[in-house]
């Protein structure tokens, strides 16, 4: 355990402040001005300041923090069931990102919810506060149990927030579906958690007492199980655990590359702006998984950071457009918004260029590093990684295409509806978050411009140096340590094409930039002009497959209704008919035989006399046979 007095003692407050705003909004929200929004803004603003101070402390002192906060149940046997705070470079940086976005979302909500006169605001801000609390506590969780607990609470908050407009039919259904899909993943997470605890007695993330190596069948099961649900941050958090298994890592990478392309292809044909962004998010998570699987721990976290910024920017920008469009989300009913919404347009374009991976915006640098790490480790004789690289590279073209298609349809051309011709203005509370994120999406790449560092030899790969800092060395969570692990256990080595590492790097970067530009250029050509056509119609049957998301929904509905519900109804029929039928049959037989036996009791004395005589005779006969009198 590393213990530093001082500022770290306040780290729990980073999560506790939004918890307080949850309680305030829930119980007192309706009497407050702005109905809980101000409490949330103050709380997440406080979290942001505290996280920033924590990060500075970490950089200056080079010391981390790993402290138990609360004992869930006193340790017995060897189990360790407690909650704690782990501050290392990974969690300190993530705390800043999460609290920044939580803060900006609260500010933006003033414009999106309060100014639009939405009902149920205290409930909304309570949900948002609980969400921020759960997410922040998840980030500084010091062990897997705590991570699971807050991961589940995040799931609850998603259910609450997705289903916010519960008086309509669709949101509660969507909320249920989202919760059930994550719940299915949580099942594997829980199996993994219980397996880790039961096998190792502890599930701490940091230090020697963390996950021990040992490829027993149980730990293989646990690896597979936790991996299904973990999510990118948790994969990074548990990297020391995964880095030990070569096949698992390569499969993560390949799945990541596949996800990047698969989800991007669905975003191509979507008509609703938020749907494009949703599928794009899945695709970008694919890149992060690709990087982690390929041994690019720093690259993965770098892309996680830049993506958090530019995707938050794009979602808030879409929200701004939706306000302006009087809650219309279909991009075919928009067009020409750039004239009326300068701030939204400019920031949205910055976010889009970052998403598409175009130089010099943030996403270019991080995506390039992801692809570079995959390529070099793939060239080090690992075909699965090379496959993942090719998938990820193809996705770059698709990403460029759907991103620019979205921009063109929303902002360019002529307004296609009255609402688009005369959009509803948005206030400072919408523009301010967009502006902050817009600047970050533009310059965020300089956090870790690895190619510049390699070419010039200047020490500008700040994020890499930060993640390798002394604090993480001590806690055994450093990028360097993970690099050794992947090298030693998973056998990852770097390879390169002819011309050496620099040529590989520059060639790879040039290739991905060219593909991004080609994708974006294609979309620009197809959708320019005042009234663009629906070119995706030309895809024919393929479009139908993509619009219906490769029939995943049908498959899930079949799983829920066709399979599970039918099994349940069959079980019910069986239960009523056979099991309860047997119970009722026992009672019917008793009643029936009772009824028949009752008929002996006729109340007529001569009948009784006859029965007695008959019985005596029968009895005598029986004794005669058994007793051997005959």
């Amino acid at each position: 355990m590393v213990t530093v007095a001082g500022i770290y003692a306040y780290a729990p407050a980073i999560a506790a402040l939004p918890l307080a705003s949850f309680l305030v909004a829930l119980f007192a929200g309706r009497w407050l001005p702005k109905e809980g929004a101000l409490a949330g803004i103050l709380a997440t603003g406080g979290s942001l300041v505290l996280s920033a101070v924590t990060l500075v402390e970490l950089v200056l002192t080079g010391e981390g923090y790993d402290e138990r906060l609360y004992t869930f149940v006193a340790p017995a046997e060897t189990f360790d069931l407690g909650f704690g705070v782990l501050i290392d470079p990974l969690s300190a940086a993530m705390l800043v990102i999460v609290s920044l976005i939580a803060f900006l979302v609260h500010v933006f909500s003033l414009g999106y919810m309060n100014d639009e006169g939405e009902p149920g605001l205290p409930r909304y801000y309570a949900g948002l506060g609980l969400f921020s609390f759960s997410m922040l506590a998840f980030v500084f969780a010091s062990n897997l149990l705590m991570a699971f607990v807050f991961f589940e609470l995040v799931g609850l908050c998603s259910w609450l927030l997705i289903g916010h407009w519960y008086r309509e039919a669709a949101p509660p259904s969507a909320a249920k579906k989202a919760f059930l899909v994550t719940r299915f993943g949580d099942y594997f997470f829980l199996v993994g958690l219980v397996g880790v605890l039961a096998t190792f007695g502890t599930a701490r993330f940091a230090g020697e007492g963390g996950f021990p190596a040992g490829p027993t069948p149980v730990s293989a099961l646990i690896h597979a199980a936790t991996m299904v649900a973990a999510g990118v941050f948790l994969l990074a958090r548990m990297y020391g655990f995964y880095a030990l298994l070569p096949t698992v890592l390569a499969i993560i990478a390949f799945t990541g590359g596949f996800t990047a392309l698969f989800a991007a292809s669905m975003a191509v044909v979507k008509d609703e702006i938020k749907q494009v962004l949703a599928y794009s998010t899945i695709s970008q998570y694919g890149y992060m998984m690709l990087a982690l699987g390929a041994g690019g721990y720093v690259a993965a976290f770098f892309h996680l950071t830049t993506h958090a910024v530019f995707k938050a920017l794009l979602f808030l920008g879409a929200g701004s457009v939706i306000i302006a469009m009087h809650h219309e989300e279909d991009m075919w009913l928009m067009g020409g918004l750039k004239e009326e919404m300068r701030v939204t347009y400019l920031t949205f374009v910055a976010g889009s260029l970052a998403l598409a991976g175009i130089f010099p915006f943030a996403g270019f640098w991080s995506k390039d590093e992801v692809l570079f790490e995959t390529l070099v480790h793939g060239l080090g004789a690992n075909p699965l990684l090379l496959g993942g690289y090719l998938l990820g590279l193809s996705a770059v073209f698709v990403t460029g295409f759907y991103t620019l298609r979205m921009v063109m349809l929303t902002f360019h051309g002529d307004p296609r509806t009255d609402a688009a011709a005369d959009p509803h203005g948005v206030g400072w509370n919408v523009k301010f978050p967009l502006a902050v994120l817009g600047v970050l999406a533009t310059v965020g790449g300089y956090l870790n411009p690895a190619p510049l560092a390699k070419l010039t030899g200047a020490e500008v790969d700040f994020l890499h140096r930060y993640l390798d800092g002394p604090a993480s060395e001590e806690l055994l969570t450093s990028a360097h340590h993970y690099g050794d692990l992947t090298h030693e256990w998973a056998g990852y080595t770097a390879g390169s094409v002819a011309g050496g590492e620099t040529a590989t790097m520059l060639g790879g970067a040039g290739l991905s930039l060219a593909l991004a530009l080609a994708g974006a250029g294609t979309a620009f050509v197809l959708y320019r002009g005042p009234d663009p056509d629906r070119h995706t119609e030309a895809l024919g049957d393929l479009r139908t497959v993509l619009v219906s998301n490769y029939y995943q929904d049908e498959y899930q509905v079949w799983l829920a209704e066709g399979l599970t519900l039918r099994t349940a109804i069959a079980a019910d029929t069986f239960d009523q008919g056979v099991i309860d039928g047997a119970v009722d049959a026992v009672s019917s037989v008793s009643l029936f035989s009772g009824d028949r036996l009752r008929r002996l009791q006729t109340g007529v004395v001569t009948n009784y006399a006859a029965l007695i005589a008959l019985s005596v005779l029968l009895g005598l006969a029986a004794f005669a046979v058994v007793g051997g009198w005959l």
Partner: protein
Amino acid sequence: MLVEALIAVPLVGAAVVAVAPNEYAERLALGVSAVPLVGSLYMYLAFDGSGNALLGGDVAYETFFEWLTLGPYAVNYHVGLDGISLPLVVMTTVLTTLSILSAWTPIDDRQRQFYGLMLFMEAALVGVFAALDFLLWFVFWEAVLVPMYFLIGVWGGPRRKYAAIKFFVYTNIASLVMFIGFFALVFGLGDAVGSTGLPEIAQALRAGQLGALGLPGTGAAIPADVLALSAFVAMFVGFAVKVPVVPFHTWLPDAHVEAPTPASVMLAGVLLKMGTYALLRFNFTMLPEQAATLAVPIAAVAVVSVIYGALLALAQSDLKRIVAYSSVSSMGYVILGLVAYSYYGVGGATFQMIAHGLISGLLFMTVGVFYNATHTRMVGDMSGLADRMPVTASVFVAGAFAYMGLPLMAGFAAELFIFLGAFRSTVLPAAPLFTAAAMFGIVVVAGYLLWAMQRSLFGPFRLETDYDVGRAPVHDVAAIVTLVGLIVLLGTAPELLYDMMSDATVDVVEMGGELP
């Protein structure tokens, strides 16, 4: 004398309430039930026992005097509490008070008899958990059936007579099977025990003093191992009906659907725990070797109860039936924890008894509050109730998520302990597989509860029955909100109960640890 007071106050109170005027019965009953509530909370705070009451631990609040002699056996009045029974007693008094409160709105006929029976049942339930002599325990055990029979049969729904008789006859036959099994053991112990005291019998059995049981007049005898195994099966079946475990569960949905809300709360919250409590006290404390021998079939029954019960809940469209079948599912976890025979397994099973008691009580009470307003429980008859009854709907949401095992609520702690204990069980072969199979229940439970909420609470408001739906009365809301508070309290600080529970259950498994 505290235990006696806890039994006597509701017993005398029941007699008083039964002759009081109907107008005052509800308030009088609430007042009477507050006394054991405060008493049991005091007993919780002042608890100074340690260890297991049956295995030579320090019993708290103990009373012992000789009562009568039956042949070679002394039957004593012996009561006392340990870390297993005290939490159950506290839960009984809490749920009785809250059930009485929840009865104010729906019960508008023969109130004095109704509340009299509720108090009588409370006295009998405290007796079941406190008794340490078999015959004394059996008197309380059977006494519980009587008030419940009348509560269902008089104040129940349209099929109340069928449900009440089914409940009574089914559980009574089960008691008979269990009784025979237990006395076969007592006779098998022969001179080794001189009383029907549960501690004496338990310790003699664990010391291996069971002999062959001679069959009078034949010269034949049942060998000790056969005797122990058949007695274990007889007692297990007898208690399994009460729990209930699949396939002995079909009385439960009928009883729940027909019972008035307060009786449902007591039935799910406390009466089912009599079954698991008895399984722990008798089968798993007295005959650990037989429990280990039969571990695989018992674990299979537990997993089937979890999954099959959850699937049945998914197929229902009556809110009460949904909650009733999910009780079958949740009680399966208790059986799994018990059969795991490990520190967290048995401790978690004991914790789950309390967690499930509070959570299922909460859900039944909330369904009752909806029913008072809508006069229907059919999911298809209503939608968008959250629009008219926002607080009650929020409480239902909280209860449903507690049932799904949301962390920081009591159900999660219980399930986590059970899964941990079961996963590393040394007694149960293939323990991780059984555990992983039972865990899948957490997905199905989320499915049927979220679906039920989506259909009945959310969407546009619609009600097929012709009633004005408005906010629920304050006393109804107070009862359900109190339960939510307790569930969150136990979920965030399970130590409040787990400490004393594990102290009492560890003795049960310590010897189990030495089993082959």
